[in-house]
């Protein structure tokens, strides 16, 4: 069933990349490509302290599932999983995780790239960054 081979999830809790990678198993798979998007400490020249992801959940789940099914149809892969965070994230936290299994590496890399690009453009999730206050140098004292 396609839903078992191509899964999209939202989670408000931490993403355990090691666990997700370990759960990807198929004896026909010669390639396992994973992508992990993490919260970085800067954007547009400003220092980021943390951020929030907000999802329009009903549509996000449906669009996300459609992206995964499209990946299965367009690439000769065995299975694919994508998990996206919601809520408050700190620097270094995993925001999105994608794993793709296929017989050979080329299609796994291509499908993984396709999934992250499509998720970013099609799935209604918004990011709100919290910026660190600018540090103003103290005036010199005599």
């Amino acid at each position, binding site marked *: 069933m396609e839903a078992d081979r191509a899964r999209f999830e939202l989670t408000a809790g931490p993403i355990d990349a090691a666990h997700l990678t370990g759960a990807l198993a198929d004896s026909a798979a010669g390639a396992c490509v994973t992508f992990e998007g993490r919260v970085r400490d800067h954007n547009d020249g400003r220092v980021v302290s943390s951020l929030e992801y907000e999802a329009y959940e009903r549509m996000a789940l449906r669009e996300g599932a459609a992206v995964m099914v499209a990946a299965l149809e367009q690439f000769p892969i065995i299975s694919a999983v994508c998990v996206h965070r919601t809520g408050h994230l700190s620097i270094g936290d995993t*925001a999105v995780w994608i794993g793709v299994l296929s017989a050979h590496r080329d299609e796994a890399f291509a499908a993984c790239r396709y999934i992250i690009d499509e998720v970013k453009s099609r799935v209604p999730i918004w990011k*709100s960054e919290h910026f660190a206050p600018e540090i103003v140098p103290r005036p010199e004292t005599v």
Partner: protein
Amino acid sequence: MAVDTKSILVEYYAFFREAIGRKGETIVTQAATARDLFAEIDRKYAFQTDHEKIRVAVNDCIVTWETRLADGDVVVFLTPFGGG
């Protein structure tokens, strides 16, 4: 001719939720299309955003601004997505 009044649930996310300060509201309106409804809400809240970049979803599907609204529809206005 009877006035076509309908009750629409508008859910707010991201920019709109922050601008309005709530997650949604039920609006009783005579707006015929999604465009009419947005204009009505924009008059009420005077959103400071680039309207060209906003899209609209009715009942969880992205639709054109000319889509006609029906009583009980759920409408969401969408700023550019930022996931990933």
